[in-house]
């Protein structure tokens, strides 16, 4: 699904995800879920539904992997 980049969105680096599910649990909008696909390291990585992210950063701060997820928040102008 295409991500609307005029709104906040999480960028998931699929290969780094270890499928622990912490981000899914931490998301107040429930727009993250464990995907059906496996990444190269054998984990069902997390995917973003494509809409609904409010840029709260919960997923980033609750994810134990340094390079698995980052949150992009467009500047208000």
């Amino acid at each position, binding site marked *: 699904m295409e991500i609307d*980049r005029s709104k906040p969105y999480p960028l998931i680096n699929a290969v780094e995800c270890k499928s*622990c599910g*912490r981000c899914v649990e931490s998301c107040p909008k429930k727009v993250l879920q464990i995907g059906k696909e496996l990444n190269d*390291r054998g*984990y069902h990585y997390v995917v973003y539904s494509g809409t609904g992210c409010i840029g709260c950063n*919960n997923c*980033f701060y609750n994810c134990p992997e340094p*390079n698995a997820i980052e949150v*992009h928040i467009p500047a208000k102008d």
Partner: protein
Amino acid sequence: MSEKITCTKGLYKEFSRKGGAAPTATHYCPGCGHGILHKLIGEALADFDLQDRCVMISPVGCAVFAYYYFDCGNIQVAHGRAPAVATGVSRATDQVVISYQGDGDLASIGLNETLQAANRGEKIAVFFVNNTVYGMTGGQMAPTTLIGEKTITCLGGRDPMTQGYPLHMCELISSLKAPVYVERVALSDPANVRNARKAVRKAMEIQRDGKGYTFVEVLSPCPTNLGISPVANNEWINQEMMKEFPVKNFRDLTAEAMAFQRPQSDFSTASLEKIFDLETTVPPVSGATVQGEAQVKIAGFGGQGVLSLGIMLTQAAQAAGCQVSWYPSYGPEQRGGTSNCSVIVSDSPIGSPIVYQPDLLIAMNRPSFERFKNDVKHGGTIIYDALMGEVEIPEGCKGIAVPAQELADQAGNSKGANTIMFGVMMATGMTKLPDEAFVKALEESFAKKPKLIPINVELLKVAKAWAAKHF
């Protein structure tokens, strides 16, 4: 369109020290709390511009590899000793020092260091990862294991009648006078992670301002060893762990605390010489009868007298007024292999006692001969036991096969083979020491058994006479 990106800071982009097939992933299990705390600390280091003046002390435990990740200075230390090393670094360098430790490391083997450093109010930030088990070693009971909690070393659950009660580190630390900031936080959900982030930043600000000791305990998940899912582990922290370990601030003296005023450390040579009352110049070697330097390697089976032959050579060198070093090596070879020692005889002070390329090799058995023969300097000499049979001497070296046991037997002293070797060493002149020095070494070596002195001096002569005929 401009945008703000929330991403990891203060950690390396790629973990090249880790390497392997996944050099951008941590070595931690899925759902582990270490990665979260790493990100929080890294972010604070970057935001407060502390990376270039921070030394992290990493523990023994899963976080032993913290140096894979943190883009700052690091020292990895022995189990539980992080606060002791952190004390040294903090006092000597005035850097920002982080002691990152787990519950086994900090509250068990390192409890003494932890409390002493806290009590001294060392200028260090301690981050204490409490997950109630020993992680790296496979889930044994820790000092912080809850009552009734099952681990592989308390299968029926921790029983206070036999295993005591969970240790409350924040409570212990805050009973001391010196600590500036003591707080317990958790990594169990977004609200708690936000508080943990605040506590980490507070601690790092206190360090930046040089105000003293901070202690942040972090209740952290270990899904692998608790045998539950990461999400279930979070619930367990909130429902079970927090009953025993309440999440709260125990002390915050940030406002009152003054920046440490410690005198500047002076590590100049002159200062150290004064402190330790050292002589400022190396005394001239009086009475050295040799010119230059001789490097000797003596090798053989353990028990062949290899190390004591080296000692005897040092005694000869001292008798001749020389500088001398003796450096034994008997690592894994204690188990039936070879042992060896390096001896350097010199007319001037010796910098390093290690001999890489000996002038003279004494090989008491074939494995030692084979191992070291190619190290011998061009123009050097190899003395070896004739019992070894046919050997190949490296080009440019001289080989001397000594029938040491046979000569000793003929002289009526079957235990004197080593002295024969010593005598041949003397006869080669490679050590540059005079014959009297070798005699003096025997006198000193057998000082407790004076009867053996003339017998061994006689063996020296036998060896010399043999040498005169054979090379």
